[in-house]
């Protein structure tokens, strides 16, 4: 079992579950086999509201790999969840004008699930 299995299992059901550090009282994202915050840390999994803020964004117009070139233009954003300050890389639709500071909703699309964000209404 990989440390990230619970994340993807919840994502497949449209839910955002994050590995959580009790010692630091914040999310561990990405989830891993040890805590990055403390050597003695009780790590658990929590369901959180899928709301985040955009820290950085870009529209990819050209990609060196053919599999991704056909998807251009597409958006990539680094977002930080409101709950737990988890950092995630996310895809967004290139027609969205997302900027740092924007509030976004995290959702999961595709099978297997991938992290997407849309602007919070």
């Amino acid at each position, binding site marked *: 079992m990989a440390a990230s299995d619970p994340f993807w299992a919840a994502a497949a059901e449209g839910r955002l579950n994050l590995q959580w550090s009790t010692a630091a009282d914040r999310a561990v994202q990405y989830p891993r086999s040890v805590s990055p915050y403390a050597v003695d840390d009780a790590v658990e999994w929590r369901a959180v509201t899928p709301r985040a803020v955009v820290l*950085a964004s870009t529209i990819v117009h050209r990609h060196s790999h053919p599999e991704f070139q056909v998807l251009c233009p597409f958006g990539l954003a680094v977002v930080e969840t409101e709950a737990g300050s988890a950092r995630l890389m996310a895809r967004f639709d290139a027609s969205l004008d997302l900027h740092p500071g924007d509030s976004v909703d995290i959702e999961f699309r595709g099978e297997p699930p991938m992290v997407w964000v849309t602007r919070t209404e």
Partner: protein
Amino acid sequence: MRARARITGVGEIAPTRYTEGETVTTFVARVAHLAMTDAGLEPGDVDGLIVQNLADAPFMGASVMAEYLGLSATYLDMVDLGGASAGVMVVRAMAAVHAGLADHVLCVTAVPNERVAPRAVGMPSTAAAGYKNRSAQGEWDVPLGATGGTFAYAMLAQATMARCGVTGEHLWQIVDTARTNASRNPAALLFDQPITRDEYDASPPTCSPLREADSIVSCAGAGAVVVSRATLRSNGAGSPISILGAGERHAHRGIAQIPDIAVSPNADACRRAFAMAGVAPADIEVAHVYDAFSSLVPRALAEGGFVAAPEVGAWMTAHGLGSESPLPVNPFGGLLGAGHAGVAAGMSLVTSLVHQLQGRAGPVQVGLPRLGFVNSTGGEMSTNVALVLAREEG
């Protein structure tokens, strides 16, 4: 003689024929935690990491592992010397501590033996499945198309433009200066390839706000230096160039994990180099910065402490970056003008600066500077290093 370095913690995992559900990453992490616990240290205390060649992370493995362990490091290394690796790691750690590069260096070796090869996790796409990297980036970034580096530097450019008063005009200025410098350097890849403003504006966008012309052209190349004990008489053809200061800071691997995208870990690498050198940014006469993307130049001016961040754009407009500037940047053409030979690109910044300080830069010589600065970054602004070099008289 009192030792300058001591072993303060030990971690051991007893030998077994097989491990159960361990990857190299988890096994390294497990024994690393045992050593930190024994040392009475938390991840936040450990500022150095030395690893073996890591099967899960064939590229920048020490950076990948430092991020996984939650370390912010001023010393990272990888030792791949067979059976002597572990002992050599201790030597490297001793030297790092002795040189003031780090306080606590974790040296880790871990060899799992699984009955079944570990599966790649979270790699749904064809591209990602073919991607041998089983690191976090392989699971969380690659499937989204967040690969290739440009997207990350585009995000960094977004932050730079917001923080430093930098616009597309400044990006053009950087590219123009690089190509102009290259036109004076017969050894530069783009020596005979000037670019007009119209050509720059027509250059296709890659990842907003960057264009193809804002990025380097990859090429072949190589560079090497010899670093010698300062007390030895030099037989070198050029004046020996002193390494007055050096600094590193590596605090993340993937751009999603960068502590602060506005002020990257590079700022601390530069600060550490100047602190060791005992000189100020204002003393620097020529700067060689890692212009893999034009937008990295204003970031380096801010993070190197040369210009206050909000004033960088205005400073560039007022002073320029060429030979007439109070701070000439990359007079040899930089990576943008001279070419980017993969991992050798960073060495081209060092060797060309040494030539500049020695007065051996030929057609791109800018006066006879005595004090120079080199700043390089790797990955997704993941690894950062700064050097203060000087031609010392006598």
